[in-house]
């Protein structure tokens, strides 16, 4: 969209993760005008790189009772208001031989104290319901865990916010703050790389940049004590269990297997990192997860994995704490008044399950400062379904296509069964928001590239489709595929062994062997042309002659 040199608004939200988007919706529902800027895309950070587990709270009953009770309350609310993004799978807490007996013994009591319904299940019965459970299982409890699709949650929150007047600027980074006494006069942002700079004049600024909250605050000249914890997760080729399966022990590595529609998601690790640049899952982390996970579900040792991804949790507190899991997973809201600023707030920490609550608290503060008295409505208002945002859930488009596909609606992605109509709907949604859709945008809003082929085949079909629809022109398709693979690849290196390595080999044979994408510009050079530049110029002049 074309931007004037400065824009005015009541509230500027920095960060388009689950918190920022929930905040935009919260404010919009209260009638507050706001702009959300996101340096990358929706849920690009930890918001999109997690289990998708709507915690019943049981995981925290022993260590962090407040967090546990928060989770319980919030998950109940979300199951009510955002049902479309949630699958009420239920969850098991499973202990295997060698796990801490005392922890197991205390678990029911802990749950009871936090008001969480945990029911003991006899091991045989549990294994009948979840055949993948290990023979070494010694105790199983059932809890009201559920699976949630954070992308759909954020996209639909934002869609509603937008429908109420909120503005969204993707791929827009904050370049600086203009301070004036105890106030921030304006925030300078830049669209894309080398795009024009814009001043956003807002009476309130909320820093909801998640892991990047410290950097943003620093730009505003206020310090936040925050540490980073990298968590890696693996995506299986086929779904292994119907329920959320948690290891019944103090939180540790690879102790949650989450059903993600048609796949299972195994996680997570937790390692301290000091920088946010180029976070990628490593082979060592994948091995750790597989080995730990296999103790609870042995099939995980032989499973085909299609993907690995890593997110960074922002953890509040000094960088002293040894195990990053010991640091509270609760969230914090800073009003920065003692830092000398009256119109900046930072909301960070926390977790997916409590994102709505975090937004509510932040919105309350902002509204108080703005003198807005309208109450929060997000706990009671149903989240409306948005046609362009329904395609993120694994298995959704497959079922939808099976139930209602039209004679002329071809699949572009065969693995996840995404039809052309879905891509068109997403493109329409982005255009409506004044965006120019990219292949990567479509990937984030659908299952394209998320199946077994990881884009090897569907990227080609989707690009061809977009050209045909007139969405792409000139040489853009090639560039888009390069970007897309760049993004997909980050999630593959760590799981490339066995069948998935064969799949990757096939993808490379196609995209490098045949299409020569790695040659970039040179892939458009005709070596046989008399005056071919570059490589051909280096060709042996005696080339024509037989050796």
């Amino acid at each position, binding site marked *: 969209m074309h931007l004037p040199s400065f824009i005015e608004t009541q509230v500027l939200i920095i960060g388009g993760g689950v918190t920022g988007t929930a905040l935009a919706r919260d404010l919009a529902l209260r009638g507050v005008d706001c702009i959300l800027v996101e340096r990358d895309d929706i849920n690009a950070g930890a918001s999109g790189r997690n289990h998708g587990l709507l915690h019943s709270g049981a995981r925290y009953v022993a260590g962090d009772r407040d967090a546990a009770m928060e989770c319980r309350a919030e998950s109940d609310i979300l199951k009510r208001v955002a049902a479309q993004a949630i699958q009420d799978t239920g969850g098991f807490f499973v202990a295997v031989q060698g796990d801490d007996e005392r922890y197991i013994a205390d678990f029911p009591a802990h749950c009871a104290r936090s008001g969480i319904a945990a029911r003991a299940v006899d091991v045989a019965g549990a294994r009948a319901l979840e055949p993948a459970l290990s023979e070494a299982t010694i105790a199983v409890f059932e809890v009201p865990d559920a699976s949630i699709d954070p992308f759909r949650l954020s996209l639909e929150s934002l869609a509603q916010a937008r429908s109420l007047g909120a503005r969204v600027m993707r791929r827009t980074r904050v370049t600086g703050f203009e301070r004036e006494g105890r106030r921030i006069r304006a925030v300078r942002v830049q669209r894309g790389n080398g795009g024009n700079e814009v001043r956003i004049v807002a009476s309130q600024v909320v820093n909801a940049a998640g892991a990047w909250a410290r950097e943003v605050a620093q730009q505003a000249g206020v310090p936040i004590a925050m540490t980073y914890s990298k968590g890696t997760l693996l995506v299986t080729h086929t779904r292994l269990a119907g329920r959320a399966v948690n290891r019944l022990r103090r939180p540790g590595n690879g102790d949650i297997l989450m059903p993600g529609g048609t796949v299972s998601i195994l996680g997570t690790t937790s390692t301290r990192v000091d920088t946010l640049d180029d976070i990628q899952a490593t082979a060592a982390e994948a091995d750790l997860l597989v080995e730990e996970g296999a103790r609870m579900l042995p099939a995980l040792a032989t499973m085909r994995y299609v993907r690995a991804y890593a997110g960074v949790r922002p953890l509040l507190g000094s960088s002293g704490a040894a195990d990053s899991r010991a640091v509270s997973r609760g969230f914090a809201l800073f009003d920065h008044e003692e830092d000398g600023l009256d119109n900046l707030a930072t909301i960070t920490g926390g977790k997916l399950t409590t994102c709505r609550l975090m937004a509510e608290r932040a919105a309350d503060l902002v509204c108080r400062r703005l003198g807005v008295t309208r109450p929060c409505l997000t706990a009671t208002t149903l989240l409306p379904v948005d046609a362009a945002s329904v395609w993120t859930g694994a298995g959704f488009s497959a079922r939808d296509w099976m139930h209602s596909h039209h004679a002329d609606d071809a699949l572009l992605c065969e693995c996840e069964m995404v039809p052309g109509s879905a891509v068109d709907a997403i493109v329409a949604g982005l255009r409506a928001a004044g965006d120019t859709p990219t292949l990567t945008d479509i990937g984030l809003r659908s299952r394209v590239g998320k199946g077994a082929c990881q884009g090897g085949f569907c990227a080609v*079909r989707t690009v061809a*489709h977009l050209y045909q629809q007139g969405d792409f022109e000139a040489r853009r398709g090639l560039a888009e595929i390069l970007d897309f693979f760049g993004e997909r690849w980050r999630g593959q290196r760590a799981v490339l062994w066995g069948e998935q390595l064969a799949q990757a*080999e096939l993808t*490379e044979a196609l995209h490098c062997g*045949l299409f020569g994408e790695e040659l970039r510009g040179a*892939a458009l050079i005709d070596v046989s042309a008399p005056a*071919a530049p570059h490589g051909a110029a280096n*060709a042996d002049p005696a*080339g024509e*002659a037989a050796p």
Partner: protein
Amino acid sequence: MTSGRGNSCDVAVIGAGMAGMAAALFAAERGLSCIQVGSGGGILFASGLLDLLGVHPVAEGRLWRSPYAALAALAREQPGHPLARVDPGAIRTAFESFVAALGEAGLAYAPLRGRNRSVLTALGTLKTTFGVPLSMVAGANLLEAPGGRQPCLLVDFRGLREFSARQIAATLGDRWPGLRCQRIDFPGFEAVPELYAAHLARALESGETRERTIALIQPLLGDAHAVGLPAVLGLGHSRAVHAAFEAGLGLPVFEIPTMPTSVPGLRLLGALERVMAARGVRRRHLSSVRALARNGNPGTMTLELDGVPGGERLSARAVVLATGRFSGRGLTADRGGVRESLLGLPVQQPASREAWHQRDFLDPSGHAINRAGLRIDAAWRPLDASGQPAMPRLYAVGSILAGQDWMRAKCGSGLAIATAWAAMEQVADHLGGAGAG
């Protein structure tokens, strides 16, 4: 089981990819009796283009007009590369006889000259390759026309999801102004949402569908000097179909290779199987070698196959390992590392899995894992841990060999054909030419 066919031979070839097929063909041409185990699945992923050597060095992405010049450079700078071990003259001979055999089986290639050609791909990129099927060569000719690129019409079919003429035209537009595109409904498939290239190729082998298609394209020709189509011009009888299109349209017609599973791949597999049948190579499809052992009576080896009830035992005087890499399952990669699948031969490979792949998929220097593979001696025999030939009459050819990255160097077919030829030369020497089968 009384399969009715003998189960002893001079050479047993394990694997039926390009290298396996080439090895079996060259064995037969040298008068050696041959049994070939495995199905030709890998070939289905081929584009029908026969690369020799297009890029060297990989890290620089340098393209070569002359593959032989490239080979010379390779030999100088990368003597460990399998292709660098083969005499260029032998490579020329090997290619000639491979292409000739395909011709006999009805899959015609343009005459091989000493230079690489460029062929249009479905993505609008230009692929540097060596052997070009007759059905694609008009495109290459058009690209290198001395008088600049003539106007050309690209036609595609609604529903053929992986091929957009519009995309190709848009991608090459600035370098080829005369490139136009048109989309038509494939006759008889108007009501079908998803088209599959092989089904169209099959349909075009019927004269009626052919004529209807030509009639649809005819009025779109305009100023075009040639017509490009996705590679769907017939399967087993592509020669006749292509000829009919050129005659019907009165213009040169060329195919553009599509994404796997591609029609050219199916053609290549079909032609190679016909070659094997014609040369009396005994095939064992859908079965795999469970075990390979040196036999009590010296000079022969025993292969145990599974897939058939009770299994089957073959006896061979020499065995060629052409089992390919990971998708061919010649190499098995697990979290611990890479091993050779059949005998567990030592595999030259990176120290840790972290080093298998670059952080960028399209990193110019390529992925280390793709250079992993078997080390061999001068006689193409894979080495064991002690650096000695694992077996006196066991040979290895094709992509399973270490020290090459065929996908980046654009040398897949070259690697298969050249190494198969060279290895078979050794086999023939060792077995003393033709022998009992």
